[in-house]
């Protein structure tokens, strides 16, 4: 349209965000999404007529059967020992998992891997497969193989930790500057020396943060692995759930929430301190 065209001849059409074909697509998409949701609710046998008022009913159930939480249950000495066990499992799993994840992250980072053809895909595959299986499924498998106790829980969380931290550690390596790497390499260093002297100093801070964050995620998982027989607080949760002692369940769930929250605060505090100390 040129600037001097007689604008008054044609009245401007009413402004709309979506014109004819787009508006049709838009309504089609909305209709399709609604249809999909309807179909999946039906497939999952979720009773749509019962959905309104669900909040009220949930509140009734929780307040009648789960309130008040039976605090004496979580004050038993056995439970407190289980909390310590949980901490120990998460700690060992994190340290061992990170130690295994470090070489995997090195081999699985596209810029620093010693061999892009062989090591890179293998390391990526290992990390991916640890990641793609949920930690509870690892627990069930390892309990079936190793038996009940803290050992299978620790092993399961080690797998989880490899998958979780391996990806983050590798991403930290992929973000480093290439200058130091080239400088070290130019002085005749081999791959390991390049990793130790050019990569490690650059990722040290990021990795420390990742390690602490990983611990906090692993700890959250550790509170429930006991549900499948792998030691820690989850074991008490399962006992109370099976005996339908709802008020005990409420107490244990609340204690898990509080402890995980405390762990998260501690982890955030340490991470903040480290980043302050470095800066």
């Amino acid at each position, binding site marked *: 349209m040129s600037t001097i065209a007689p604008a008054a001849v044609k009245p401007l059409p009413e402004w709309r965000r979506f014109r004819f074909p787009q508006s049709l697509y838009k309504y089609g998409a909305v209709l399709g999404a609604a249809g999909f949701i309807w179909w999946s609710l039906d497939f*999952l046998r979720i009773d749509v007529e019962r959905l309104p008022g669900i909040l009220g009913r949930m509140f009734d159930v929780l307040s009648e059967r789960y309130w008040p939480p039976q605090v004496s249950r979580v004050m038993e000495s056995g439970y407190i020992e289980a909390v310590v066990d949980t901490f120990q499992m998460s700690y060992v799993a994190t340290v061992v998992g990170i130690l295994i994840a470090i070489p995997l992250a090195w081999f699985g980072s596209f810029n620093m891997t010693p061999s892009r053809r062989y090591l890179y895909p293998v390391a990526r595959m290992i990390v991916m497969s640890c990641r793609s299986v949920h930690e509870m499924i690892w627990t069930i*498998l390892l309990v079936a193989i190793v038996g009940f106790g803290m050992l299978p829980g620790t092993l399961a969380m080690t797998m989880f930790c490899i998958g979780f931290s391996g990806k983050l550690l590798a991403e930290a390596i992929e973000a480093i500057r290439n200058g130091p790497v080239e400088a070290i390499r130019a002085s005749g260093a081999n791959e390991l020396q390049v990793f130790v002297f050019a990569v490690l100093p650059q990722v040290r801070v990021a990795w420390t943060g990742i390690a602490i964050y990983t611990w906090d995620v692993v700890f959250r998982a550790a509170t429930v692995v006991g549900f499948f027989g792998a030691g820690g607080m989850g074991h008490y949760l399962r006992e109370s759930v099976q005996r339908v002692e709802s008020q005990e369940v409420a107490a244990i769930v609340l204690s898990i929430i509080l402890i995980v929250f405390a762990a998260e605060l501690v982890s955030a505090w340490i991470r903040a301190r480290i980043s302050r100390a470095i800066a």
Partner: protein
Amino acid sequence: MRAGAADLTAYDLHADQISAWRNRSRRMRYGTYFMVAALIAWSVEAIVIGDTDWDRISWASMFKSARQFMDVDFSILGSLLTPAIETALMATLGTLLGLVLAVPVAWLGAANISPLGKFSYAFGRALMTMSRSVHELVWALIFVAAVGLGALAGVLAMGIRSIGFISKTVAEAIEDVNPGPVEAMRAVGANRFQVLLFGILPQVIPVFIGNVIFEWDVNIRRSTIMGLVGAGGLGLALHRQMSAYNYGGVATVLLVILLLIIAGEIASYLARRAVI
């Protein structure tokens, strides 16, 4: 540089400070190493020596138990199709619920647009932490208790669990929006809602969609275990095979779970590429 006497003293003082700082940081470093090692020793002792009955476990017994999983029982494959679809649908509906619930939480928890200032900001942040810091299994238990067995509990658990991640990343994206469009909207007389809708929303939509796709991918993984506590899907099939000690069947269910997760990963990769 020529140093006079006074400069030299200053220099010595500075060197002293540096060496003191170095000693202190070295002491701190060794102290940290020692603590890490001591904690490891204590924990490994408890796990490997205190809690494990090595008389009962041997390589042979472990190998035998692992061997049982190798006889994959393909006869139950047909009965797993419905639970597999259920799992995927639960993850999808859970993500949709999380997405819907995450919008108001992100609105509360973004410092620059939080409606009641500090108070609602703290409330929004607390909601995010609450949602994230409870394991999905615990959420599932809570909702199974509240609404009964079935897929609804799983959908609700994953929806609540997803709020944290989606709203946190979106709130951070809202905090870094370019203020230009916001000011422009305000300058033409938009009210708060219109500023949100036309000034902020278009800028955060890509982050939002990317994170929702990511969360969907994670939710598929989560929904495979929801059935273990009675919330439907493949977890329920896993639980049944496990209770029947049919290890071949367990292996089959695990294979189906793996396939579903791989399919989800491919789908989320394609979706992310299509959108972004």
